[in-house]
């Protein structure tokens, strides 16, 4: 389906209907920035997004995998210490949090390490 020209909120509503129709159990949101359509650094916007756009999917038993970015590294910072860009509620409201890090870049290959924390498991 195409949600071209529609606000994200409407598109999420349509996506939810499609998920219910097809018995979908995993939705990938790629990526959070454009879907949020708000200030990623504002707790109110982030919490509102989770509450209004994400929670209805969870209420239907659908898992949501959200792709997000992190802020640029500053001098002296380690990659692993960086969180998702913006409000801490992005990670606080997620049950599982994964950081992807490129460790080796070769010709036609990219090695990615999974890191960071999870509140659920043995990561």
């Amino acid at each position: 389906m195409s949600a071209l020209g529609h606000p994200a909120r409407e598109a999420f509503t349509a996506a939810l209907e499609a998920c219910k129709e097809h018995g979908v159990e995993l939705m990938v949101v790629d990526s959070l920035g454009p879907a949020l359509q708000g200030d990623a650094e504002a707790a109110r916007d982030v919490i509102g997004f989770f509450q209004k756009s994400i929670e209805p999917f969870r209420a239907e038993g659908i898992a949501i995998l959200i792709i997000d970015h992190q802020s640029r590294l500053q001098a002296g910072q380690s990659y692993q210490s960086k969180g998702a860009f913006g409000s801490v509620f992005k990670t606080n409201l997620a049950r599982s949090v994964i950081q992807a890090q490129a460790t080796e870049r070769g010709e036609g290959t990219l090695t990615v390490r999974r890191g960071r924390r999870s509140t659920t498991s043995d990561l």
Partner: protein
Amino acid sequence: MIRDRAEELETFHIRHFAKQMGERSASANGHHSELTDEEVIALAKGAKNAGKFEALWGGDTSGYASHSEADQALISLLAFYTQDEGQLDSLYRQSALCREKWIERPDYRQRTIQRALSNLTDTYAPADDGAQMVVGNGHANFPSPSPSLYKDEGRGRKLEAVKFSDMEMPGPRRYLLKAIVLAAYVTLLYGDGGVAKSLLALALAVAIAGDAKEWLGREVESCPYFTWTSSSTQRSRPGVFTNCVVVRDSILLPRICST
């Protein structure tokens, strides 16, 4: 000599500026109503107890022991829709119940409003906006996220306290990707640009949608998935959403829409 015309000025102010104030009224108690005065009135007139509201709004105090009790009843009805003290005051002044005592006695106004707010047990929530509830003494009017954790549980249900000992033991956690992606929960995958986050997510989704038993050494549970992608992610049209729907074993890869 300058005469005291505070009352006339207040009347003038209410007559000419109350509407603008009502649109985003000043909030004495830190609450900012999402509704304008007109919207509050319209909602009250369309509610099940509209008859009661309209009678009070029209100045009918019959059925109440005193005018003050009628005042309290009207403010209590309005407080369901707005907890903004300034807006409650403004609304009351627009009603036919408004009288000198309200205008001249700030202590009376405040007491009446505070009593209404402290007795609140529920507040208005837009139909598409999940539940908004007042917890505790009624002064805390923070939107409460829907309490549902799983399908349909909790929505529209009145909150009640339960003992842990009365609750069923939860079953084992259900994962779509063992120990990483929990069913019915949010997983956040983040990192720098260009570290293949989207590709990882797509690969995982394909594994889940297919018959793969494992992905990167972890068990996967087979189920359909839906991916939401923005064209800005595809480096074409910022802010425009395109499509990609995958249902179990058939995959429609993202297609940039150009209409």
